[in-house]
């Protein structure tokens, strides 16, 4: 247990570098977490485009972005939860229930914008319900949200009588705006980008974001540093629920109707997108950009298969393969990094 294990020029003598150049070196360091998924997505797009040039057309790519929006938004919330070693399996059901709520409120004559806001608030409340179950019954989040996954879905089916509920008509300004585009970029995609930017700032630069990552890195140390762990967990679940509500509202604006079975299985895709993006299941680290890119990659795979005329029923299989590839690549990188750290200096 000597202070300096033998290593080349002992850095112990140098004064600590007062300030690192942050702009070149630091930026790339930050980017590293989602660099993998970014490269993989671009490579896959180019690969598909090499065989089917039509795939590279702008409207095609924007269609993929639109499709990726819903999972992408859910994945951003999931990234926060994974970063603090929690999990929300109910997001797919929250998505469906809030979409239904938005549709039913507008059908009942409410202004669609107001209905949308209420649906997002309702999503937040569903998240709060999850957090309260976890806190007061001492349940692991995977168990509590497994229960609410079924409960919220069941509520959706019961309220809708199992049938599609129509939302605002397509010529309503609400639907016009959400299904519209700006210079060819779909509004839904713009919403995803805004969400990603805002949440990246929240995760990287606010006390809440630091708290989330602190808790995921070492829950006991977080508690013994005075971080209000229960309150932070509650906030993260409310965030996840509200994002489910946002995704639900967008689908009503885009499709004009809510199917009670919509979004089933989205919880797993959202987790997959976050993990593909570079968020660690072990907690402590997350990347919002990566989570959204993970959703885009899943979308690229799905439409790529269509271009190669692979039957749609192979879609899930391919999704699984992508997840497997991303996760094993991630763990291989981590192993190498650890091996390097192990042989490095131990000051």
């Amino acid at each position, binding site marked *: 247990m000597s202070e300096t294990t033998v290593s080349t020029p002992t850095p112990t003598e*140098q004064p*600590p570098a007062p300030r690192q150049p942050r702009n070149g070196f630091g930026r790339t360091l930050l980017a590293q977490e989602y660099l993998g998924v970014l490269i993989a997505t671009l490579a896959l797009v180019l690969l598909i485009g090499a065989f089917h040039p039509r795939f590279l057309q702008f409207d095609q790519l924007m269609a993929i972005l639109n499709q990726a929006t819903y999972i992408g938004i859910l994945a951003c919330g999931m990234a926060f939860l994974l970063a603090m070693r929690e999990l929300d399996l109910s997001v797919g059901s929250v998505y469906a229930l809030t979409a239904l709520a938005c549709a039913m409120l507008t059908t009942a004559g409410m202004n669609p914008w107001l209905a949308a806001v209420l649906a997002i608030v309702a999503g937040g409340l569903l998240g709060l319900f999850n957090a309260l179950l976890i806190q007061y019954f001492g349940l692991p989040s995977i168990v509590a949200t497994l229960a609410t996954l079924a409960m919220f879905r069941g509520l959706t089916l019961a309220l809708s009588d199992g049938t599609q509920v129509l939302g605002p008509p397509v010529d309503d300004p609400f639907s016009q705006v959400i299904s519209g585009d700006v210079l060819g970029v779909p509004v839904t995609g713009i919403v995803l980008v805004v969400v990603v930017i805002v949440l990246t700032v929240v995760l990287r630069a606010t006390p809440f974001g630091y708290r989330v990552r*602190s808790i995921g890195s070492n829950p006991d*140390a977080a508690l013994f540093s005075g971080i209000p762990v229960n309150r932070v967990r509650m906030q993260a679940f409310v965030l996840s629920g509200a994002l489910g509500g946002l995704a639900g509202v967008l689908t009503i604006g885009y499709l004009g109707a809510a199917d009670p079975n919509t979004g089933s299985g989205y919880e797993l895709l959202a987790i997959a997108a976050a993990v593909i993006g570079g968020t660690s299941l072990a907690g402590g680290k997350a990347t919002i950009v990566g989570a959204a890119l993970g959703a885009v990659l899943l979308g690229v795979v799905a439409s790529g298969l269509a271009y190669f005329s692979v039957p749609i029923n192979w879609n899930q299989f391919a999704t699984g393969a992508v997840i497997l590839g991303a996760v094993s690549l991630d763990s291989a990188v981590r192993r190498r990094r650890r091996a390097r750290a192990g042989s490095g200096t131990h*000051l």
Partner: protein
Amino acid sequence: MLEAQGIRKAYGGVVALAGVDLTVRAGSVHALLGENGAGKSTLVKVLVGAVTPDAGVLRLGGKDLTVANTADAVDKGIAVVSQELSLFPDLDVLSNLFPMREYKRGPLVDRRGMAAKARPVLDELGLDLALDAPVEHLPLDQRQLLEIARALVTDPAVLILDEPTSALHSRESERLHDVLRRLRTRDVAVVYVSHHLEDVLAVCDEVTIMRDGRVAVPSVPASTLTVDRIVQHMLGDKVAAVVEERAHSGALAVEPGQPALRLENVTVPGQLQDVDLVVPCGRVVGLAGIAGAGHRAVLDVASGVARPSRGRVVLPDGSPLKAGLRGAISQGVAIVSGDRKRFGVMLDKPIWDNIGQVSSVALRRDGMVIRAGKVRERAAEHVRRLGIKTPSVDLEVGMLSGGNQQKVVFAKWLEARPTVLLLDDPTRGIDVGAKAEIYGLFREQADNGAVQLVASSDPRELASVCDEVIVFYDGKVCARLSGRHLDAHTLLEVMNTGIAPADAA
């Protein structure tokens, strides 16, 4: 008769046992004594097969003995009661008494047979329990007795008790001692590890004292020893080294108006009994006691972790302590634990992130936007001032040595500018050089006017670092040692007997 000869065991470069001999006669109770780290626990682990020695032989009843693991040890007649409780909380009393060795009748568990075996043992220990009661709701002392019962139902030839009385009240310890005396007539060899030296002298026939991985005193009759002599042997010649000149020689007084951390009439059931305590700012105050004496409970109360059932805690500024950890921390309390990997650091995060954890993140002193650059600048300042050896504040804390990790923990608390520092064995597992630097930090903080409370399991450390040491015994303050009364020898003696030296305050 149990014999161990030439037992050696090293962990990496650290020698835990350097050739230890031990002979325990059948029909005798043999005390195994020594300070923490003297090698008692390792020796016990060797005897029960939990640790394989590098060299040495064991013999039981004259025959060579090899024990592969603890289950094997039980099969060969060696039973152990360890200081950590190892009961299965969900299982009932009877199942806990026969773990992995249920009586069988055909393929079925023979509960009646087990009950017939268990009853007399439980009666002997004075345990009046329903055999089908789950153990998780039993009080701590009863669980401890149950552990002893579990060892006794195996009819051992050798019974090893590793600090069995730490959770027991005096009446139960008395009961245990009766049982030990009876085992003597049944020719059982008993090895008794304890810090209660008075207990040891009351019940043991022979005493072996260990120091630094060696036997300092081999198998002498207990009747030839006193508590004072035992303490001398436990410390060895290091006693001389710690007797040093102190700036002040008399007892330390507390001025009436002096700002201080005050415990007023604090009771925590089973841990503290009506404790009144004044810890003035500006000195380094130690908390000492044997396990369960209450000195650690003071830290739990002052950090808001434990809520007293009666009484209150008042901070130096006169405000009462808020409930809960977060409340205490927001009022300026800092908690530095020796278990830094669990409670102190985020190993996978850079140094600056760790240093900002309390002030910027938990207490939001930087407002709603944390500028990493600002935190890093302040972290670099701490790194420089505390002499944390690192090329950059961006290095992950997991890459640092233990001593430097602990300095990062100090830095994160100093960054929050605490007025009360609670230090729980803060130098555990840290090498000597870093220890000295960390002691320097205590002094500096005390000079800055903070309350410094240090709990440690090492009396030498407390005697050399503190201005004053408060000794606890059985949930109460039994002495405040300072000046010429504050040396490792007196401290260890008072910790173990609960009796203050005649002329100390």
